[in-house]
C-alpha cells in the first residue's frame, strides 16, 4: 500500500510512487539517486541523514516518504549554485573540517540553517545547534571553526552588498 507523492527535490519537481512504510532516506537514495543523506543509526541519534524539509533540518531516517507530498526537500547536492559551492561548503574545506566525510552533508545542512537563523552565532550557540550531528573523527573543533568562518564571510558579503 502506498501512493504517488509529488515534491520538490533540490529545486526540481519529482513525483514517485512510495509505499506507506518507506522512509524518506531510502527513497532519496535508492529511487532518486540522492546519496548525501547517510544512514548512521536509524533512530535519530546521529544526524547523518539530515535533510532540509521546507527549510528546516529534519531526520530522513524517521520521516515517512508519504509525508513529504507537497513539500520541499533540500540535500547537500542542492546547495551549490551553478556548480559554485555554497559558502558553508567552502568553509568546511578551508578549515580542514572534513575527515572521513560521512557526517559532513548533515553538518553542512544544519550549519546552513544555523546561519540563516543567527548570522552572528557565538561558539556556545554553534555547539548547541550542531549537537544533534555526531562526528567521530574531528572532535568538532574544525567544524566549529568552519561555521564561524562561514558566518564571517557571509557578514562580509552582506556588508559589501549594502555598500553597493
Amino acid at each position, binding site marked *: 500500500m502506498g501512493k504517488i507523492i509529488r515534491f520538490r527535490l533540490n529545486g526540481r519537481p519529482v513525483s514517485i510512487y512510495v509505499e506507506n*512504510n518507506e522512509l524518506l532516506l531510502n527513497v532519496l*537514495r*535508492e529511487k532518486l539517486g*540522492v*546519496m*548525501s*543523506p*547517510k*544512514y*548512521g*543509526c*536509524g*533512530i535519530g*541519534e*546521529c544526524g*547523518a541523514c539530515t535533510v532540509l524539509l521546507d527549510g528546516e533540518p529534519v531526520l530522513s531516517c524517521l520521516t515517512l516518504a508519504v509525508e513529504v507530498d507537497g513539500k520541499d526537500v533540500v*540535500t*547537500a*547536492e542542492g*546547495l*551549490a549554485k551553478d556548480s559554485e*559551492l555554497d559558502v558553508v*561548503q*567552502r568553509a*568546511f*574545506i*578551508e*578549515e*580542514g*573540517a*572534513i*575527515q*572521513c*566525510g*560521512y*557526517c*559532513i*552533508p548533515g553538518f*553542512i545542512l544544519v550549519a546552513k540553517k544555523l546561519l540563516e537563523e543567527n548570522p552572528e552565532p557565538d*561558539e556556545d550557540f*554553534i*555547539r*548547541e545547534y*550542531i*549537537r*544533534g*550531528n*555526531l*562526528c*567521530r*573523527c*574531528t*572532535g*568538532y*573543533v*574544525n*567544524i*566549529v*571553526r568552519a561555521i*564561524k568562518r562561514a558566518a564571517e564571510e557571509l557578514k562580509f558579503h552582506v556588508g559589501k552588498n549594502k555598500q553597493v
Partner: protein
Amino acid sequence: MASSSLKQEGFRYIGKRTPRKDGVAKVSGQMRYTYDIYLPGMLYGRILKSPYPHAKIKNIDVSEAEKMGAVVITFKDVPKKKFNIRLVSADRVNYKDWEVLTDHPKYVGDYVAAVAAETEELAQKAVEAIKIEWEVFEPLLDPFESMKDGRPKIHNKILFGSKEITVKNNVACRLDYSEGDVEKAFKEADVVIERTFKTNRRYHMQLEPKVTVAKPEPDGGITVWTTTQTIHNTRILISQVFDIPMSKVNVKKLPIGGSFGSSIQTNLVTLVAVALALKAGRPVKIALSREEDMYEHSSYQMYFRLKVAARKDGTILAGELENTMDIGGHQIQAYPLLGCLLGWFVSLYKWKNIKYKGIAVYTNKVPACAFRGYGNPQITWAVESVIDELAEALGIDPIELRLKNYVGRGDLFWGQGPTVKSVVKSDGVPELLKKGAELIGWYNRPQPGEQKGRFRRGIGLGRGFHTSGAGGRISGEVIDFTGCILKINEDGSVDYITALQDHGGGSLDAHAKIIAEELGVPLEKINIIWADTQTTVYDVCTHASRGTYVGGEAARRAAREVKKKLLEYAVRLLGDVVNPEALNIKPDEELGQGVIYVEGMPDKKITVGEVAREAWQRNWGSVAAVVSYRATNSPPAYTVYFVEVEVDTETGRLRPVRVVAGADVGTVINPDLAAGQLHGGFAQGWGMAVLEDTPYDPETGELMCRGFITDYKIMTAQDLPKVDDFTVIFASTHEPTGPFGAKGLGEAALNPVAGAVANAIYNAIGVRLYELPITPEKILKALKERGLK
C-alpha cells in the same frame, strides 16, 4: 606559486595548508562510499544472527524463507574452513577460529545464516521466516569466570598456523616475557607501587556501519566493494576461503566512513556477501544496521596488575605487568596484541627490569579488535596513572620524573612488540613538555585534595607515543609491506595509484604533497586514483599509524624514480645538457605543470608533460614507476596532553576546561589535518576516560544498550572544550627515516588522553579511580566514601 610562498624549510607544499583533494566531493554529497554502491540486478542481503550468547543449532529450517523467493545460505552451505579474518600477522602465528557461518554461535549476533532477496524488506521477512531449534549454554561474560575449570568450552579445536590445537579453559593464547630480575629490584627500591586497573569495552562508532557489495563475474571470479582498511588482505582471504584464484578476486578501494581499527580485519559480513552472491549468481549488498554493527566489533577490555619500583632519586628500577584480556568470542589479533601491549609498556619508560604475563581469554561477547591505539591507550592510562603516583610518593615533579625515565632519543624502542626493534632517532618530548607546561600553567596547578569548594579544577599530564607503522630491521611476525605506482601523463598530470586506504585522516593528501614536493609538479596535478586489487601492488593495511610514514615513503621513492627518468629523458631532449644533475624541476603556474629547467638559462626548459609524451612517441618508454617498500623502522610519534578538568563534587560531573595537545610527528605535512587528529583523538580519549562502555546483560548476554546508540553515547560538540581552549603544538623535529622527516600520528593522538584525564581528576579532588570509564556515578561514590564531599 611564487617563491615568496615558500616556507622557511624551503618546502612548496609540505607543511602548508592545502585543501584536501576529496573536499569538494565530500561537502557536495557526491563522495561515494560503499554504502552508496547500488548495482543493476542487485539483491539485498540480511544476516540471521544468534539471539543467544552461546548456543548450538539442533535444527534449522529455511524452507519458508526459500518459498518467499529468497536465496538462503546456512553454515551447511559455506566452506568448512577455519581461518582468521585478519591477515596482518605471518600465517605461522595466526590463530584461526572463524567460520563464515556457524552452527555454534559464541555471542549474541554471531552469524548463522543469511538470505538475499529483491528488496531489503523481503530479505528481512525471509530472515524472520527461518526457524531454528536451539541448545543454549550458560554464557561466560567475565574472563576470570571463563578461565575456571568446568566452564562451557567456547572453542574446542582451533588452528594455529596450519596446526590444530585444543583450547583449554577458554584461554585463547598467552605470552610471557622477562628481562632482568624484578623481584630483586622491588627489594632494593625505595618506593614500590602496585595497582590493579580495569578498562572499558568501547565500540568504535565509526559513522558508516559495515557494508559489502559482492558481484559474481562470468569467469567465476568476484568483484567486491567493501568497508575495509585493506583491499589486498580482503582479496587474499576471499580467495583462500572460497578457493577462487586471486587474479579473479577484485576488491575495490572506496572512501570509508571512519574505521578506527574496526576493519583491519575483513569483517565477516564481506565473506557472507560473497557466499550469497556466489550462490545467487547476482550482485548482493549487505549493509549492516547500526545495531548489527555494534554486535560486530569492540575494543579489547583489559585487566592490569601493574607493579613499579623506583629509587629515591627518581630512577625507575622495575616494571611488572599482568595483562588479562577479554577478547570475546573470537581471536582477531589477540596474540600479536599480547606482544604489542608488552611493546607499548617497555617503550614508555626504561623499566630496566621487566616481567610480563599476558593472557587472552575467550568470553561470550562481541569479538574484540584493534581500536585506535591497539591497547596503547589502555596501558598508557594505567602507566601514566602510576607514574603520577610514583612522582607524588617520591616528591618529584611528574614532568621531571618522566623526562628522567622515558624512552627517548638513542634508546632501544620496540613499540610493536619483541620482534620489531629499532633505535629512536627523533624525539620532541622535552620540547613538548616544556611548552605544554607553560601553556597550561602547570606549575600553578593545585595540590591534590587541597580544594574545598563545590567545583574543583585540576590539571593532569599524560604522555605517550605510538609507532609509525610496524617496520623493523628483521623480518618479524608482523607484515608491513607497501607499494605504489606513479605515472606521468603527457599533459604533465600525475596518476598516483596505491592500495593504501585513507580513512579520512588525510594520508593520501600527504602522499600527494610528498610526490608534488619531490617531483616539482603542482599539487593539483597529482591525481589520487581510486584503484582496486587488480591494478595496485600489495599494501598490507592502513593501521599502526603507518599511512604517512610508510606509504608516504613509498610515494616519495616512486617520485624519485619517476624524476630520475624524467631528467634522463630531458637530457636527451634538450640536447646539450651535460647530465641529469644539471636539471631541476619546478611547478610553473602559467603552464600548470612541472617544468624541467637549467638554472640560470631561462630558455633551456621543457615541461614534464612534453618529456612524457616524447618518451613514448620516440619509443624510449613510459615515465612511470612501480615501487615496493618495507620500512626498517617504526619510529615513535610522541604525544603529550595537558588537560584541565572541572569536577562538580555535588554531582560528580566532569567538564574538560582546557586542553594542550602536543605532538612530535617530525615534519608536519598537513597542519590542519594533523591538528584534526589531535582534536579527534582528544574527543575519543575523553569519551574513553569518562563515558564509553558496552556492559552486557548478565541474564541474556545481550549488550545492555541492545546495539542502540541511544545508550552508547559519544561526545557531542557541546561536551568538548571551546576552540580557543584547545591548543595544539607540534615539536620541531625531523625524523631521518621518514619522508621529508615525517612520522605517524593517528593513534598517538589518542593514547595519552585517558591518562591525562585521570591525573587531572586526581589533581582536582585527590581521588584516583582505577576503572574506566570514570563516570560521575563513580566519582560521587568515591567522594562520599572518602568523606570528601
